């Protein structure tokens, strides 16, 4: 059986999630490897989520937000952009190929683009093969308050 990558997608509620919705209602086909997690804004995405995803066995993480300037919350996507650049540095240090973390801008009307991004990213991860961590990524420390 061939390798089927497991991909986590963090989609912002207003653009990318709606775009995914559009792709769906438009019956566009794309690989089923990505599972999406809806957040209100790409600015909500804590780097911890990404580290956690890799640690838990994701082969790739896709972060989608609104196009620059189009953020529903004015500039959440810019904050996301800054964090993702840093996170990519960080995962490199952990020995994870930074291409496994991808940031894409997909707007609500870009169902076709969403389809394209997913297909292409899935193929890319597939060609990279499974992520072998060997326990290098530490468990994100949960603060006590979250109990």
């Amino acid at each position: 059986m061939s390798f089927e990558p497991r991909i986590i997608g963090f989609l912002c509620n207003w653009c990318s999630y709606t775009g995914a919705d559009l792709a769906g209602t438009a019956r566009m086909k794309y690989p089923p490897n990505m599972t999406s997690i809806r957040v209100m804004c790409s600015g909500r995405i804590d780097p911890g989520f990404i580290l956690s995803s890799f640690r838990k066995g994701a082969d790739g993480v896709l972060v989608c937000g609104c196009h620059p300037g189009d953020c529903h919350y004015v500039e959440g996507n810019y904050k996301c952009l800054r964090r993702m650049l840093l996170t990519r540095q960080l995962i490199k240090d952990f020995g994870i190929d930074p291409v496994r973390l991808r940031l894409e801008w997909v707007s609500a009307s870009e169902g076709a683009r969403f389809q394209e991004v997913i297909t292409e990213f899935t193929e890319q991860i597939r060609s990279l093969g499974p992520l072998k961590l060997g326990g290098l990524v530490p468990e994100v420390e949960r603060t006590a308050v979250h109990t």
Partner: protein
Amino acid sequence: MAQVHVNIDGHDIVMEEGAYVLEGARSLGIRIPTLCHYPYMTPYAACRICAVEARDGKGWTKIVTACNYPVWDGLEIHTGTPRVMNARRVNLEMLMSRSAPVPVLQQLADELGIEKPRWGTGDDTCILCGLCVRVCDEVVGAHALAFSDRGIFRKVATPFGGQSDDCILCGACAKVCPTGHIALDDINQRQVVHRDISLAPNSAISLPFRQAVPNVPRIEPEHCIHFNTGGCKVCSQVCPKDCIQYDDTEQIEEIEVGAVILATGFDSFDPSVMKQYGYGRYPNVVTAEQFEMMNNAAGPTGGRILLENGEEPRAIGIVHCVGSRDQNHHKYCSRVCCMYAFKFSHLVKEKTKAEVYQFYIDIRSYGKGYEEFYQRILDEDVNIIRGRGAEVVPASYRRTEEGQLLVRCEDTLIGKFREVPVDMVILCTALEARADAKEVARKFNISTGADGWFIEAHPKLGPVSTTTDGVYLAGACQSPKDIPDTVSQGGAAASHVLKLLCLGEILLDAAFAEIREENCSGCRICNGLCPYNAIDFIAEKKVSKVNAAMCKACGTCVAACPTGAIVGKHFTDEQIYAQIEGILT
């Protein structure tokens, strides 16, 4: 100005010093005939018909012209002495000797008792009163007319006697001409400059639309003579209430509102990019919008369907889907064109004897009564040709006498290539999103689709609302729509707004961020991050606090909080971690 006492034909009158005799006489109801005098213009005193006798009561006497003689204290004016009457008569007879027997002179001749002018009559309909020159100069400010030559050869002329670009075709000269010497022949002939027909109002002063609020006329600076030349101002002179304000400018007012309905409409596709249809190149290729204006009884042709040369067309071609359903332009169907094209056919049939040819891809006549109208059009002997209009070429290309233009297409029903001779082509141009739609969308924090139409919150569940609370859509800014659909959507948007207003309060989303005071270090990182300024720092407690009513739940602060003190409700870290875990195990 000082007040002076003047006596006109035995009547005492108090006037302002420097005012003209004519004003005084007219206010007393004393008639002094004039030919070159007109209100709103400075007196010219060229016709000398308004001659009166001025006296000072001490023996001094002089013939003066009433229209421009300034009054002074003690002035006596006699308007009917034999010397005055003789001067008027001889002058009028001399004028008649050059002029054609125009009514204005005939009337005056009757008034002065001239039965047969001594030196006969001439044939010039211009009496050289100069009203046209002055109205163009002083009032309109276009300076497109002047007197040329001198003495008996004097005449009114345009620069170099030709058509002048200075002329703004306002028609003021023709309006003031007392003899009809200036006719708007030329302007009438050029009345239908098809490519200049637009939806803009014909008059510079108009109501923006019937139900405008406030319901008062406004000046369109683009068409107003005053704003173009600095002259005119006739409206302010005739307005009895002094309502005209020229220095009123556009003002930006900030109004606080709780909800906004976007109803910014659509733009019409510019067909000149589709070179094959020759729009802008052949004078009789017009857009649907221009044809609509031509049909308007208050439009440039008075509702008549005319070619640019002023003749009635013998055949008209209507090309559907110009810019719509086209891979190169807009893929979507503009929805309204088929039906208005039928309406055009009907109007043409009603007003002219022209043949009508419709070139269509598919007829889309859904909706109540639409299909029946289509049938009626078919019964009216309109030629419906299935085949997209491929090209419009001048008829000279085929040396045919039948029409001025040829519409070429492939008639897919008979499977033949056809060239249809017509005199006029109407292009059913696509509806497209406003050029500034993206900008507007950004302002209201909503999205536009690939074609530029505003995106509704949900195509089925929220076709009126948008992703921004309190912003609603109505009409063709959302997608091409006909009038009934637009009215429905407008009503729906209004009721959404009313719902908000009637409630008096807003139901907030349950999702918002919250700071656990005990975990907050008071670092204030979150304060600056919040795009809505919803986080305040409470100095005495040295902690930050989220104002739940202002928070939109984006979660940026949640992700940024170094101590994890902020909880994004419904999107808590735990929930997301759980989702990750759930997905990956």
